[in-house]
C-alpha cells in the first residue's frame, strides 16, 4: 500500500493547524482508514494534548529518528480509533535535532503501512517547516480570515511551490458568519481571489473547539459542533468525495429586513 503524506501548515501560528490535524486524522480514521499523525513541532509539542494522549507518551519522533526506539514503539494508539496513531514531537529537544532527509525516510516507511500520514507543521518558515515540507507529497494550508494570517499563507504558498508542493489546498478556519454578513470579515471569495488556491473547507468559529481541546477529545466527535461537522466534510473531500460547501450564511435578521424596507440594504453579501 502507498499512503498519502500530507503536511498541514500555515506560516502564522495560532490559526488552528494542530486542531485541523487532530480532527482530520480522527475523521479519516472514522472513515475506515489507517492513519498516523506526526507532530513535527519539536520543542513545542501539542498534538498529544489536543488528542488526549499526553499521558501515554514514552518515545517520540526524535527517538525514532535517532534509532533509540523502533518506529512502532513511538506510535501511540488513539483512545477511540483503533487504526489511528500519533507519533509525538520531542519536548526537550530543538528543531535541529532532525534532518529533512531523515523525516522523509520515516514517512516513506509509514506510507507502506498507512493510508494517510499527516504531519502537523510548526509555525514559521525555518528548520521545522522545512523538515515537514521536505517529507510531504501534498500540502494543506490553514488560515483564518485575518490580514496577518493571509499574508503569511501567501508567503508559504510560494515556499511550498519552491519545494515542489504544488496546488496546496486551503482550509479557512474560524469564520465568524455574523462579521462576514456585516462586511467586517473577508469571505471565502475574497480570500480565494487574494491567494488563488483551491478551497478544501470552511470552518466556522465555534466555542466547541475550545471545550473539545480542554477535554482532549477532537471536536469531530461532537455532533452538535458546527466546526466538527465542517472537519468531517473536509475529511470526505480529502478522501475524494464531492461534498458541497456548508451554508455558513446566517438567516437575515429583523434589522436587515428593516434596512431592506427603507432601501438601505443595497450591498450584496455573498460568502461561504
Amino acid at each position, binding site marked *: 500500500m502507498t499512503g498519502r503524506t500530507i503536511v498541514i501548515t500555515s506560516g502564522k501560528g495560532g490559526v488552528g493547524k494542530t486542531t485541523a490535524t487532530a480532527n482530520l486524522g480522527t475523521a479519516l480514521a472514522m472513515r475506515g482508514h489507517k492513519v498516523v499523525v506526526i507532530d513535527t513541532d519539536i520543542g513545542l509539542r501539542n498534538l498529544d494534548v489536543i488528542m488526549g494522549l499526553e499521558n501515554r507518551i514514552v518515545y517520540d519522533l526524535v527517538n525514532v529518528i535517532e534509532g533509540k526506539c523502533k518506529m512502532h514503539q513511538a506510535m501511540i494508539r488513539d483512545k477511540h480509533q483503533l487504526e489511528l496513531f500519533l507519533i509525538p514531537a520531542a519536548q526537550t529537544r530543538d528543531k535541529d535535532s532532525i534532518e529533512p532527509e531523515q523525516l522523509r525516510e520515516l514517512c516513506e516507511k509509514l506510507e507502506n503501512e498507512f493510508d494517510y500520514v499527516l504531519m502537523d507543521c510548526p509555525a514559521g518558515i525555518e528548520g521545522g517547516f522545512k523538515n515537514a515540507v521536505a517529507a510531504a507529497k501534498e500540502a494543506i494550508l490553514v488560515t483564518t480570515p*485575518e*490580514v496577518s494570517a*493571509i*499574508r503569511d499563507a*501567501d*508567503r508559504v504558498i*510560494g515556499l511550498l511551490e519552491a519545494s515542489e508542493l504544488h496546488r496546496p489546498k486551503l482550509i479557512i478556519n474560524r469564520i465568524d458568519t455574523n*462579521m*462576514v454578513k*456585516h*462586511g*467586517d*470579515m*473577508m*469571505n471565502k471569495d*475574497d480570500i480565494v*481571489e*487574494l491567494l488563488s488556491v483551491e478551497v478544501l473547507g470552511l470552518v466556522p468559529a465555534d466555542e466547541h473547539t475550545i471545550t473539545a481541546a480542554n477535554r482532549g477529545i477532537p471536536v469531530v466527535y461532537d455532533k452538535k459542533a458546527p466546526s466538527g461537522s465542517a472537519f468531517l466534510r473536509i475529511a470526505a473531500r480529502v478522501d475524494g468525495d464531492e461534498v458541497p460547501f456548508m451554508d455558513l450564511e446566517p438567516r437575515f435578521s429583523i434589522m436587515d429586513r*428593516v*434596512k431592506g424596507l*427603507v432601501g*438601505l440594504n*443595497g*450591498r450584496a453579501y455573498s460568502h461561504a
Partner: protein
Amino acid sequence: MRDFIRWLVNQLAAAEEEERSGVTAKQRLQLVLIQDRLDLPSDKMEAMKQEIWEVVSRYLAVAEDFLEFEIKKLDELVVLVSNIQVNDASELIPVPAPAV
C-alpha cells in the same frame, strides 16, 4: 414616534456610509501581497525610481520628485504607476538656437 424613525434611518445611513473593514482588509492585502510576491526590496525600488527620474529629466523639465510612484493593481493587471509634474513651457530646457 416620527422622531424615532428619523433617528433610526439616520443611524442606518451613517452605518452604511463608512466602508466596511472587510473591504479595507482585502484592498490592503492586495497591495501587500503584490509587494511580497515581487520580492523587490525598498532600496531597489528607490534606485529604480531615481533612474527613471534621471531618464525623464534628460528630456523634460520635471519636478524634483514623483507625485506618485507605486506598484499596484489595475483590474487584473499589476502595474507600475509613476506620475511626475512637468514644469510649464517657460521652464522647459531651451532648445539651442540654430546657428545663423
